[in-house]
């Protein structure tokens, strides 16, 4: 195998059982004959070493049979010309279509990323490559994980489990709303005299329109239900079309004369405070947010992935210390009828093996966190626990952090809510086009943030695994909300929370073609954890 790129070198090392420091790989790539150099370096490494270090490579290159280290050999510098970047300041509500919407340059370093300058030596990429030019290895901090169901799934599929999960949802979310209205229980409201002012916090039980075009929203709390009417002339009527069943709401209004229904004056979502101040890292460090790799599919874009992995080995990517994967590592088996006919790798374990191989191309010093998606070999019902032992064993090489879907992962002080995104389909189907669509998936994410729940509607597309508590509630406001699933790239900020729906690494499938979905494939959104600015890089 020709070893002209760092990623290939990394893969080759992985094949031989080594993780490698990024510098070590760069050094090998810079050698005149990387293959021989690699052999020598492996030879030089002690038998018990798991990680090939710069020292090993240096000693190998220095030895007579190794190639002399040809410092500054620009001709062998990693070819980054295929890496396009789209410039974007994440903050606007914009959907990224780099090839069309955004100007993109072949400049390797984004201009609006000045902090990067301090990290790198400032030399153009063409001239770097010497061991001296790359002195700083990545030093990611350990991440912390919260809200992960893995190992804590106590539900046994009983009726009581279902009741618990919805009660927990109500308790958690009504807690968020208590301060805003003076909640009265449904049964108490039913006993109040007509004309009283009332307020109630409840889960949406039913939404229907009356014959005259008004809306009736039935709310439920632990005592019962009460109907609220939103008359069609009110400006809050617009909000009705945003409502999903089973989300938690607070309303204020006036009881009708016969006290049978209340007219709504105001309606509150748990929401993210407008003034929310997100946490940021106290150093310049970046995270790549990707999802939907779909290894095993005939449409998996191995070349794009390799370019991405190669790029991670470049100086330009040296600040990328975290890789956060939001599900669908592999294409899976039996996800849809006759899927085997469209699989490149039919064996599910082989799919994970191959995925693991692809993961090894990622520099060993990048911290990886992954959650499962609906194509992965875990239960479909949400919350989804992380991969079981058998699959973890397959993916040990890169010592990735494997957690459940959803999970909140804190990296460098920045909390990232990772959720695969199955509910986005539902939100997009239920809400009007301008509020959520496949072309603007992040807008659908905004609604989830607003409802403080990643998948509120029960009984539709969502499959719910009943647990003691509702892991799908967004209890604490995250700094970044990261989803995938719909294979479309979109990002923006909602009340200062960065919402990113990353694209995918799978080209258009026959199914997508039939329903006219054009996926955004081969993009890697890179977020600066110190500023929460986002840069999208294209590798396809």
């Amino acid at each position, binding site marked *: 195998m020709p070893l002209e790129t760092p990623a290939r070198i990394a893969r080759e090392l992985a094949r031989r059982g080594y993780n490698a420091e990024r510098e070590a790989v760069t050094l090998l790539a810079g050698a005149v004959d990387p293959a021989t150099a690699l052999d020598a370096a492996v030879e030089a490494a002690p038998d018990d070493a798991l990680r090939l270090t710069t020292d090993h490579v240096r000693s190998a290159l220095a030895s007579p049979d190794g190639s002399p280290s040809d410092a500054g050999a620009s001709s062998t510098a990693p070819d980054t010309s295929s890496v396009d970047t789209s410039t974007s300041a994440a903050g606007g509500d914009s959907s990224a279509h780099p090839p069309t919407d955004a100007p993109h340059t072949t400049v390797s370093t984004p201009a609006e990323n000045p902090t990067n300058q301090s990290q790198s030596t400032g030399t153009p990429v063409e001239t770097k490559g010497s061991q001296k030019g790359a002195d700083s290895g990545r030093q990611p901090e350990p991440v912390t994980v919260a809200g992960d169901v893995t190992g804590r799934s106590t539900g*046994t*599929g009983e*009726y009581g489990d279902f009741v618990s999960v919805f009660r927990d949802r109500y308790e958690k979310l009504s807690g968020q709303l208590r301060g805003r209205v003076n909640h009265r229980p449904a049964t108490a409201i039913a006993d109040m005299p007509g004309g009283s002012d009332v307020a109630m916090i409840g*889960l949406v039980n039913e939404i229907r329109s009356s014959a005259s075009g008004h809306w009736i929203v039935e709310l439920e709390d632990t005592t019962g239900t009460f109907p609220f009417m939103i008359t069609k002339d009110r400006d809050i009527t617009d909000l009705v079309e945003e409502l999903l069943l089973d989300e938690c709401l607070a309303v204020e209004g006036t009881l009708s004369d016969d006290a049978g229904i209340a007219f709504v004056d105001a309606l509150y979502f748990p929401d993210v405070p407008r003034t929310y101040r997100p946490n940021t890292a106290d150093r310049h460090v970046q995270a790549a947010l990707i999802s939907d790799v779909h290894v095993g599919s005939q449409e998996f874009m191995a070349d794009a992935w390799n370019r991405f992995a190669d790029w991670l080995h470049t100086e330009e990517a040296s600040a990328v210390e975290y890789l956060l994967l939001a599900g669908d590592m592999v294409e899976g*088996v*039996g996800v849809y009828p006759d899927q085997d006919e469209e699989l490149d790798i039919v064996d599910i374990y082989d799919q994970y093996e191959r995925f693991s191989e692809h993961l090894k191309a990622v520099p060993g010093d990048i911290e990886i966190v992954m959650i499962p998606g609906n194509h992965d070999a*875990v239960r*479909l*019902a949400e919350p989804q626990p992380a991969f079981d032992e058998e699959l973890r064993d397959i993916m040990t090489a890169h010592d990735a952090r494997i957690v459940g879907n959803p999970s909140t992962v804190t990296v460098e002080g920045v909390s990232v809510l990772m959720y695969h995104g199955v509910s986005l389909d539902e939100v997009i189907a239920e809400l009007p086009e301008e509020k959520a669509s496949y072309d603007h998936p992040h807008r659908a994410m905004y609604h989830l943030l607003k409802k403080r729940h990643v998948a509120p509607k029960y009984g539709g597309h969502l499959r719910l*695994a009943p647990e003691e508590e509702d892991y799908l509630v967004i209890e604490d406001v995250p700094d970044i909300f990261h989803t995938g699933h719909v294979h479309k790239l979109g990002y923006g900020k909602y009340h200062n929370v960065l919402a990113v729906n990353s694209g995918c690494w799978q080209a258009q499938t026959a199914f997508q073609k039939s329903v006219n979905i054009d996926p955004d494939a081969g993009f890697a959104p890179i977020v600066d954890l110190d500023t929460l600015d986002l840069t999208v890089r294209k590798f396809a």
Partner: protein
Amino acid sequence: MTPDDERYFERMEHRLDEAFDRAKRAKERGADPRPEVEIPVARDMADRVENILGIDGVAERVRELDGKMSREEAALALVTDFVEGTVGDYETDAGKIEGAVRTAVALLTEGVVAAPIEGIDRVELLDNDDGSQFVNVYYAGPIRSAGGTAQALSVLVADYARSLLGIEEFTPRDDEIERYAEEISLYDAETGLQYTPKDKETKFIAEHMPIMLDGEATGDEEVSGFRDLERVDTNAARGGMCLVLAEGIALKAPKIQRYTRDLEEVEWPWLQDLIDGTIGEDDGGEADEADAGGDDEGDAEADSDDEAETGPPRVDPSAKYLRDLIAGRPVFGHPSESGGFRLRYGRARNHGFATAGVHPATMHLVDDFLATGTQIKTERPGKAAGVVPVDTIEGPTVRLANGEVRRIDDPAEALKVRNGVEAILDLGEYLVNYGEFVENNHPLAPASYTVEWWEQEFEATAADVQALRDDPRVDLADPTAATAVEWATEYDCPLHPKYTYLWHDVSVDEFETLATAAARGEPRTVESDGGHGMVRPKDGSGGEVLVIERTERLRRTLETLLVEHVATDEGIRIPDWEPLARSLGLTPSLDRTWTADDLSTAAREYDDGDNAIRAVDEVAPFTVRERAPTRIGNRMGRPEKSERRDLSPAVHTLYPIGEAGGSQRDVGAAAGARTDEGKGVVNVEVGRRACGDCGATTHRTRCPACGSHTEPVYECGSCERLVEPDESGRVHCERCDRDVTSVEWQQLDVGARYREALDGVGEREAAFDILKGVKGLTSANKTPEPMEKGVLRAKHGVSAFKDGTVRYDMTDLPVTSVRPEELDVTAEDFRELGYETDIDGDPLRFDDQLVELKVQDIVLSDGAAEHLLKTADFVDDLLTEFYDLPAFYEVTEREDLIGELVFGMAPHTSAAVVGRVVGFTSASVGYAHPYFHAAKRRNCDGDEDCVMLLMDGLLNFSQEYLPDQRGGRMDAPLVMSSRIDPTEIDDEAHNVDVVRQYPTEFYEATREMADPEDVAIEIAEESLETEGEYHGFDHTHDTSNIALGPDLSAYKTLGSMMEKMDAQLNLARKLRAVDETDVAERVIEYHFLPDLIGNLRAFSRQETRCLDCGESYRRMPLSGDCRECGGRVNLTVHEGSVNKYMDTAIEVADEFGCRPYTKQRLEVLEKSLESVFQDDHNKPSRLDDFM
């Protein structure tokens, strides 16, 4: 029609008149919703059309037009009448169009199916964006029963009417066009279409369609893209519209074009593009794919031309019938696989019209899974067929545990050896009639070499076949080995089929090996063989058996060839070996006449060396034909049916009792129940009626005060004015612009009514176990039935269908000639029924003479006879006790039913056909003339429908009982046909062939895979509108009884699904033509996995229900308890129902070596189930935990 036929119909109509008179007198008592018989007699199609539509004057006009033009042209001609107002009484343009469209559909479906009334909801005028008006036709699901042509014509008729009325064309909006495309794809995915137009085609049609096609939602799945459109009132797929657009317009474009050409006012030039198939061509690939998919047969023909020299003519295998295989329904043969059913051409007397003739021994040997009437899904020529027993074809060949390979032609023998069967090497012959190929437009498949073909070839030689036929010592069908060889060599005739083996299924290699082994073999006389083996030569005790070396390969070769033999320890013993030896190119003294070098390259490489027929041809001293070139794979579809039709729960009386009778709807319990209203009083919705004589108001159909008939009272719910129904029966309040019904809440004293009913018919409660009513009524005016009828039904153990009739369901099968004996009747009975001669014209004297069946005569299953007896008793009681009239039937045993009339009535139709009972059969099917089934618009591929006793229908049916919902008027006898006109039935029946022998040319044509239309064999069509149109149905094959084989399929006798599946897999192992791994794989793939996945999905989004009051909740209440009654709420889908197949599926996958892909899908699912249903903290400890 012959005078004889005329007498037959008159006789039937006479009995019908008798019944009618009696029923009329009964109805005049006024106790029923209407004081007249509600099933009008239609003497012809025009009558049926008028009756079904309820538009006066249509029948007369149809009769005028019918003689002059085709039915399609008549439908178009009628449009003018509607537009001009000479037919129908419509004030609005929309009404006129609606009338014309309905009439057209009714005409094209011969006034039988419910599509014209149920499939077209309405026609309305809506506004285009430019302010002009356009026509919108609103279809509903039941339009399906009209079929593609009528669907397409309905659109054309609407457009024609539109242009005559000067209404503008429909201008679709872009999003509406896109919506059509998305919706058709959705409907296809959800429900499936026979033909799915490509998106471009759909859009093209939508863009050019001059009227709007709309309809009501028929499914729950919604489109995701083009939602909430202003002029489309649903986001779900509109099934009726999808059918009309896809299977109507897109599929039948050429047919429509034929009519648009003749109409000046209608121009659909765009049809040409559809027909040319140029729409969507530019994404070429897809179009090609579609072509390739639909054109298997065409390819087969092409192949035969190219490869005439290198391989035999063969039809391409097709695996479509294996799709959606489910547990418990076995596969009998993989596509065209050696060992499967061998195609034999011919029509048995109980055959044709989508049926397959199978030997009864085969039925038993496939562990009784096949019985008379069992439906099979088949590889060709159609998609499905009903199984009929035919014992004049060859039975199956089996290998027994003692090493013997034997063909079994006797069902009794099959039962005897069944336990010792190791393998079923061959399923025997499979009789398909020529007409099936015509009907399915399937190229003829190469014919098996059979006696009827051989005999014609033998006659063409110098042999005096007639002399041989007359010779009592010679059996042309079953000659001795020596005779067969003699005929073949002496007269230069192909070897007799009895000794023609399946050389085409063995390779040239295997052929040579067998020849070598046979040459080394040793003939032994039976006396000196030490008593080994059961197989003895058939030509007398003095013969020899050939003993050859025993190797697995030789055994397999002989088994493939279907050479009967016994494998013993010392060798394989073959009786009657001479024809075999000669076919192998050996002399009678077993000297080999050839060496390997003598075989030509052509013979050696024929079909890549996998087919030894050419080699045999070269070395044998006579011609050897292909014994079984066409194998037909199939699998079980539905089991046969012969069951009473009961609603669930069964209903004795259509009388509402609310919740008072409990879940059993027990009227007795309701009568004594203490409710809020008082003891035995329930609050229910019923129609308000008034007595015309004394003015009393009641819910009852007969005035409780004075005994007169009552009429419904329609009071407008908003203005409280009384409204009268208009001519068409609609009740509409003009002032409030709303439809009005007579329904109101009333308090009924069920207790008093119950006691009154018992007294009225002189019965006591002890006369029956339980009298079941209904919770509420679903008809428009909620008219209850007189409870007396229910009391008598309960007494006689029969129950009512939604329309008040008592029904019995049976699988349809055809029969054209019968023996009185097999129907458990006598020749005398038959003579009394008007049968005078047998099929050869000889006087009918003996019970076993074969008689051609008359078109409206039917044979009841034993169960049906028993049920009709009960119904007759019920009807007689009803007449005497309730209507105070004399009894009509007075039956004591089932023989008394002979000659009585019944109604045959199929689902999706609205017209009953009068039939006459002529006998009984133990098979669980309803045998009748193919024309009778076709008159109900059924064929016999597993379809089932019902019979009702004539008088029961006349007395108890009322339109007033029919549910007021889509489809409510389907499967109800809105009209009856008293005599069948062969030109007015489903024309599929015209394709039944009616000859006694197929000519040699036919067999030769099959080897060319000719178009069936190019062969001259007489089919029923040819006698239409001649004097002989009611008879002359001859057949090529007899069967000793129409009820051979098991009476019930094992599918029905085996208990649980698991038992059925075990039996299915066990059978798969035994059958040589079946790949058991594939069966296991498919059962998992199509049954277990969807079930597991579906149930798991259902679990995780389920509703819950209160155990106490039954209230259901979309989501679990936060309170945990029922919000209505405070009772206990529980899940509707439990763990047990989710994972019931998990362990079995995994076991089967392991045991049958399924693909890793399948196993892994199961593994992933199993983990999912564990994850959902197991507490992580309580997981069983793993060894790792202690390490």
